[in-house]
């Protein structure tokens, strides 16, 4: 199954709604970069509200796609990280430093606007 990527003005919106397996995560990485290329988007919001756990593999794929997007000139904000996910990620030893985050989608879009100087 592929994760839908929606275009909203100059941004891309992604809401991950189900548990990510390795293939879906890697496919998403590729799809997002193609979509940035295709649409000229300069901002991306990835919403994780429905995700109830993140392991080191998914964290690595997410961290990688954020850096890859940056290389292509797009800023990424991660939103909706649940308390249980924040706790397990830190205990696991993953801090996702330098990643822009917001509590929810609304605040994420605001942060993106600020970052893009709009």
């Amino acid at each position, binding site marked *: 199954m592929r994760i839908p990527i929606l275009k909203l003005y100059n941004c891309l919106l992604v809401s991950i709604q189900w*548990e990510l*397996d*390795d*293939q879906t995560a890697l496919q998403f990485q590729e799809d997002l970069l193609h979509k940035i290329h295709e649409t000229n988007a300069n901002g991306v919001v990835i919403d994780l509200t429905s995700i*109830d*756990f*993140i*392991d*080191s*593999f998914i*964290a*690595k794929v997410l961290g990688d796609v954020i850096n890859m997007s940056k290389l292509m000139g797009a800023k990424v904000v991660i939103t909706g990280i*649940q*308390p*249980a*996910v924040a*706790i*397990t990620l830190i*205990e*696991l*030893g*993953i801090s996702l430093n330098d990643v822009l985050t917001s509590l929810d989608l609304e605040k994420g879009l605001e942060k993106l606007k600020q970052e893009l100087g709009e």
Partner: protein
Amino acid sequence: MDIQSCVNIQTEWDIVAARQLGRNVAKELGFGVVDQARITTAISELARNIFIYAHKGRVCIEKMNDKGHAGLRIIAIDSGPGINDIRLAMEDGYSTSGGLGAGLPGVKRLMDEFQIVSSPGKGTEITAIKWIR
């Protein structure tokens, strides 16, 4: 009596199956949302280690009851290459696969009890327990 169910780990889909099994058992036992996430994540890391380093093995989930105290035990067994230096493998940031290196020390922090037995060339058995608070 302890009840055990196992998932054989051979493909990356089996990692998904193992963590789903673990999450279901954790839910049944009445673990809270945060502990469910800890258990699911720990299983995912252990199953992935088997998939990456040993290529096949199995993950078993056991319901435990110790004098009325309920808990969940994860047992991850493989007959892969084993771990040469367990102390090194338990250091944060150490990885031989270019991953995040969050694996074993991370799992230890997520769970209440953690035990590892490994002999080079023979395989690895990791046991981790989470008790209901």
